[in-house]
């Protein structure tokens, strides 16, 4: 078989049912192999090939697919611009630990390094962004390389792997073994150690010594719990010891947000009660989380009264940001199982703390501006939440709408909230939703987007209708880049440079209609909100609903960049508890990210 056929055969062996990608000169043989496979497959399942408007869209579709299913997402693009358009999704997947494999066509081996047509140094470019990159320079290594790419992507701390395949390698006739990986001595040894890692009895004793000494224990759970398929164990652990849980943006869905012990998201735009609980706790158990700056703020002041335990699969995360008192490099599932087993007889009595936390949850609950005719985005999401009841897969762009979605929507299960966390890539939501829908065809998938984010990959509206993908797009249009506007209001004297979009002539509904959305509506009157949302949810096929929202709405609470939680601003509608608020004038043009 040819190298191209081999790539497709390995995809099938790896359980890939959908590939996202855009054809072009240097990848033509492999696209042809997809055609020929589907043409002669007989009873075998087809390999869907979904073509986006831009390769970046293919990357986020593969990422959405991977995030929603837990399987490796695959995308396939041509050399040069095809490959460079994938840099953003590859970096996004690296930053959020999402397993994807990208195959890029490369110019034929004799042409590499000659500035050939559509040549780009993919190995060098992707080296800085991906978990690993291969350039297949020896066709006899192609099969093992593609298989290893999948293995590397999904194992350990997951991440993106890029395989650059010269066109002549795709055309070359190669032997097919049907199995076999590259001999990656270092990676395999580390992986072996990682897979064997346990919480030792000694470690467990020390852990429970700290936990039983605590009067105000709290769990801080991140995306690693979801990536490590440890949500059941985390829920059991929280329940067994009655430990309240705060989650990161990436950790949303690791516990059921409607559970009494769920305190929801912590950090810069976390719930006030989550952040107060972090300030108040005397023991913090971080699991699959990494004290990111959007969480920790001013590191010295993060969880200032707590002893800290940290469980993570990645040794480099231990002590990277915050010094901890106890740590374990282990996958979350094994660590929680070991601790549950070792702590069978442990009893905690933290009733006053649980009362305290329950009081915080009520006293500092969310609220928004009600004394206005302008539609408040928070109200839109509260109404939507009452309709979807935590059962839909929700994707988002990046910015205010993303934070409100994280704050206002319920999620019962992991992998139902899909968002670009660490990279914060605008334009993520729509293609991710399309990918998620291919991965989970039985689920309702909604992209909650902002006008700025949607515009970044608006071409993908067409991809949804091209393939009849019934994703729903809920656009909260505040005619601006809301989050940046908010920072300009706070830190830059209301000078809205580059972020106010009231001049835009775009008619989003017509845009959607033009590419075939049968359901495409716009709401600017609050009275129509409920009815329109209901119709949107019930619509069959791709649906588009634009809601014109108040540009002045801010995301609260807010912990300013580089500040501690005690400086949290809860805003005009959420009750604070009288901590001093920072003087934003004095903060000036903050260098803190």
């Amino acid at each position: 078989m040819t190298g191209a056929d081999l790539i497709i055969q390995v995809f099938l062996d790896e359980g890939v049912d959908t590939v996202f990608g855009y054809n072009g000169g240097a990848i033509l043989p492999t696209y042809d192999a997809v055609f020929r496979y589907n043409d002669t497959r007989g009873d075998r399942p087809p390999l869907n090939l979904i073509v986006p408007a831009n390769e970046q869209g293919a990357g986020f579709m593969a990422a959405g697919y991977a995030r929603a299913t837990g399987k490796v997402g695959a995308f396939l693009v041509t050399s040069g611009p095809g490959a460079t358009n994938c840099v953003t999704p590859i970096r996004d997947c690296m930053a959020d630990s999402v397993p994807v494999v990208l195959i890029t066509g490369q110019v034929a081996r004799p042409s590499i390094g000659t500035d050939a047509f559509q040549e780009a140094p993919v190995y060098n470019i992707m080296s800085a962004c991906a978990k690993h990159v291969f350039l297949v320079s020896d066709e006899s290594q192609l099969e093992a390389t593609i298989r290893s790419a999948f293995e590397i992507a999904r194992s350990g701390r997951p991440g993106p792997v890029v395989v650059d395949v010269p066109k002549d390698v795709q055309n070359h006739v190669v032997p097919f073994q049907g199995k076999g990986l590259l001999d990656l001595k270092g990676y395999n040894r580390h992986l072996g150690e990682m897979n064997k890692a346990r919480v030792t009895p000694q470690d467990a004793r020390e852990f429970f010594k700290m936990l039983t000494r605590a009067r105000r224990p709290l769990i801080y759970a991140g995306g690693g719990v979801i990536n490590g398929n440890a949500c059941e164990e985390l829920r059991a652990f929280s329940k067994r010891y009655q430990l309240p849980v705060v989650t990161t943006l990436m950790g949303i869905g690791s516990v059921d947000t409607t559970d009494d012990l769920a305190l929801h998201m912590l950090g810069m735009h976390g719930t006030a009660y989550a952040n107060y609980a972090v300030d108040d706790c005397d023991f913090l158990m971080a699991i699959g989380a990494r004290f990111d700056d959007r969480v920790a703020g001013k590191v010295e002041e993060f969880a200032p009264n707590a002893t800290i335990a940290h469980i993570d699969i990645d040794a480099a995360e231990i002590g990277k940001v915050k010094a901890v008192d106890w740590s374990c490099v282990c996958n979350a599932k094994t660590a929680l199982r070991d601790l549950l087993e070792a702590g069978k007889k442990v009893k905690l009595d933290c009733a006053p703390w649980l009362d305290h936390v329950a009081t915080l949850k009520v006293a500092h609950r969310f609220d928004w501006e009600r004394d206005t005719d302008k539609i408040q985005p928070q109200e839109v999401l509260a109404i939507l939440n009452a309709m979807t009841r935590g059962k839909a897969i929700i994707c988002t762009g990046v910015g205010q709408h993303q934070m409100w979605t994280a704050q206002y929507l319920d999620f019962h299960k992991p992998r139902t909230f899909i968002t670009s966390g660490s990279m914060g890539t605008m334009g993520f939501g729509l293609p991710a939703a399309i990918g998620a829908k291919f991965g989970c065809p039985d689920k309702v998938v909604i992209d909650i987007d902002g006008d700025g984010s949607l515009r970044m990959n608006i071409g993908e509206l067409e991809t949804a209708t091209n393939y009849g993908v019934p994703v729903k797009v809920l656009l909260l249009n505040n005619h601006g880049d809301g989050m940046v506007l908010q920072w300009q209001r706070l830190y830059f004297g209301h000078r809205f440079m580059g972020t106010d979009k009231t001049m835009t002539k775009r008619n989003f509904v017509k845009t959607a209609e033009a590419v075939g959305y049968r359901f495409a509506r716009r709401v600017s009157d609050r009275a129509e909100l409920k009815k329109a949302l209901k119709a949107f949810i019930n619509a069959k096929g791709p649906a588009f609903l634009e809601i014109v929202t108040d540009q002045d709405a801010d995301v609260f609470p807010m912990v300013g960049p580089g500040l501690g939680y005690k400086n949290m601003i809860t805003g005009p509608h959420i009750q604070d508890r009288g901590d001093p608020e920072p003087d934003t004038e004095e903060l000036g043009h903050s260098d803190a990210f």
Partner: protein
Amino acid sequence: MKHTISVLVENHFGVLARVSALFSARGYNIDSLSVGETEDPATSRMTVVVRGDDSVLEQITKQLNKLVDVIEVIDLTERNFVERELLLMRVGAEGSQRGEIVEIVTIFRAKVVDVSPDSMIIEVTGSEGKAEAFIDMMRPFGIQELVRTGEIAIGRSHARRD
């Protein structure tokens, strides 16, 4: 503090690019980096000299360990090790200067490897400190060109991690 890190890597295309990309992306400064094949042609060993406090070094070591092509990372600074650097220098030398230079070369156990009417090429091997001292001694004669390999280092017995 100066650290000498020994990194055993797969002898593949692009590994050097990956390792150096890690250093530049994370803002670590490399004093020197040298690389060559080991006793096993499938692997190469890099000797990287970096400066930083313990927490920086811990991160460098951990991040290097995460690279798929990295087999083993040892911070030799914590162990008993031998370090050497090779230095080639062309220095201005006319008439009576030659005798003075040869005298210094002898003291440093260096080697004159080429002589021309107005210059000499000298080879020095040794630790970084020896190289620096030799350069200082030669400066007055007029160093025309200086090339250094960067440090390579090897642990004394039992330096390998099991």
